[in-house]
């Protein structure tokens, strides 16, 4: 028997003007698994993501988290409930130091958010933890640099560090390796593998490079023109005719 899904979408649809970006998607994510969403550019992956994390409101349909309807909730509250996300376009606090970026993520999960009378350094365990996480993503030597002083690849790592720091049950990763230098990709994949192997987080990842995902994913969902056309194990997906068509052949033949 499969456990009840931690995240579930029901007929999730969003229209921008006349264009249906995501079309009646029913997706189920099993707790503590690694699921990838793939699809060609413009398939609606990031849009679907934005509806799960709350940045977009769907035109139709619902999002459930642990069986509870979270469709009307704001992104801030969803994060507090346990859905954290990273962004495809690097989205960090550029004028703050690398350490502070991560420390703020840890602080949001603690009960000290509204404390305005103590110095923030009083809570030194937050900085200690932040430093540990920076070590995991190999950014520890840059802890005191403002995030604006990082290379693009380093900012991507910081983005992941922030997500890890949130300690949410669900991690939504939007193309974590996008724009990264090739030699930096393996370290990130290794990190994702470590998180996956601990089996205490549910990971949902959007990617359009398929090779990245085959080894990592427990299951792969394929989006094409806003519709969910397949959702299965990596092996089955790689043999699926429809997927081959949409993903490899389809795009090319239509030019």
């Amino acid at each position, binding site marked *: 028997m499969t456990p009840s899904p931690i995240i579930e979408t029901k007929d999730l649809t969003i229209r921008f003007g006349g264009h249906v970006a995501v079309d009646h998607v029913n997706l189920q994510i099993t707790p503590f698994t690694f699921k990838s969403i793939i699809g060609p550019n413009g398939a609606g992956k990031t849009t679907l993501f934005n509806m799960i*994390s709350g*940045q977009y409101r769907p035109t139709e349909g619902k999002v459930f988290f642990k069986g509870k309807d979270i469709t009307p909730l*704001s*992104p*801030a*509250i969803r*994060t*507090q409930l346990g859905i*954290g*996300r990273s*962004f495809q376009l690097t*989205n*960090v*606090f*550029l*004028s*703050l130091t690398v*350490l*502070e970026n991560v*420390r*703020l*993520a840890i*602080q*949001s*999960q603690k009960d*000290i*958010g*509204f*404390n*305005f*009378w*103590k*110095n*923030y*350094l009083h*809570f*030194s365990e937050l*900085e*200690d933890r*932040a*430093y540990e996480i920076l070590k995991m993503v190999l950014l*520890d030597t840059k*802890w*005191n640099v403002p995030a604006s002083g990082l290379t693009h690849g380093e900012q991507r790592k910081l983005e992941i560090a*922030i997500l890890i720091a*949130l300690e949410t049950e669900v991690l939504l990763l939007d193309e974590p390796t996008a724009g990264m230098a090739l030699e930096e990709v393996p370290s990130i994949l290794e990190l994702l593998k470590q998180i996956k192997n601990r089996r205490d987080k549910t990971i949902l990842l959007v990617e359009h490079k398929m090779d990245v995902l085959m080894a990592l994913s427990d299951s792969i969902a394929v989006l094409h023109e806003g519709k969910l056309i397949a959702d299965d194990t990596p092996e089955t997906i790689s043999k699926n005719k429809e997927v081959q068509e949409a993903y490899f052949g389809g795009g090319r033949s239509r030019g």
Partner: protein
Amino acid sequence: MMNPVQRFRLGEKEARFRSPFFFFRILLLAFFVLTPFMFRSFEVLDVVLKIIIFSALVASYDVILGYTGIVSLGHVLYFGIGSYFVGIFMGKLGWTSYGHLALAFLIAIVISGILSVLIGLFSLRIRAIFFAMVTLAFMEFTFILSSQLRSITGGDDGISFKLPGILAVDFSYGKLLGIEWTGRLMSYYLILIISVILFLLMLRFVHSPVGRVLQSIRDNEPRSIALGYRTYLFQVIASSFASCVAAVTGGCFAIWVRYVSPDSSLSVPIMLDVLLMVIVGGMGTLYGGIFGAAFLMVTRAFLPKLQIIIASLLPGVPFAIRLSERWLFYFGLLFIIIVYFFPKGIVGTAQEIFSRRKNSQD
């Protein structure tokens, strides 16, 4: 085993009382404390005291603008509320005891807090520009109210009033340490103490966990939301905290001038001054307020004097005298020069140069 961060923080802590910044603060405080001993003229004392009050007011504005990134155009409204409560209590109601003075401050703080929370909840959730317009509208509304409600506020003529006990004009303790301890001097030190306390409170506030969230909001609000912070609540906290501080500075101002009117405590020109001061001093620095206020107050007080000095130095040169009449022009010129050479304000740019030099040493 300490990690590099802990080692760095420890180093910071140990160097706390040796840093140039620490000496600068001591020097600044010593200057304000010793001003009455160094300068005997009331004029100088008046300028220095206004620098003190406006430093605190500008710093409170900086908490909203520089630390949180919200543009309010009505911050002086709370300054006016503070002034008017002192004025109405002392002047209109004739409640002139120390207790009533304290009560006037307290009520002003509470009302400012409530009002700013309401305005914030009502307008901060929408767009930044909307907040700017709403705050400006509220200030204009209060300005009109204060000039129309003659029976309470004294209309455009304002309210003149006496202060209790040692703060009264005619109070004198006699000579001590070579100067006469008048009610003026007592007011000076009272206001200095209050302003220092306000400053310390604001420093605490911006270095607290809340203060750090505010900086993250200024930097990148959507990201802050994605971290799980309900940013608008933080913005409301910041704006109401700053408003309460502004109310206290307004009350202090009323104590000093013993007079309150719409033009002196509640008008758009004061708001523009505050904006100018925060830009000159540097946004997001808190200490910038002191420099911004000093720049504006000093140039305003002494540039017009240039005319008299030049006239006495060059009595036969009408061209020079005519040139020196245009003091506002020189003020504008100075302002442009400062903004050009200190793009982040005086303190902001100084900090940047300082940290760059420190990094190049490492």
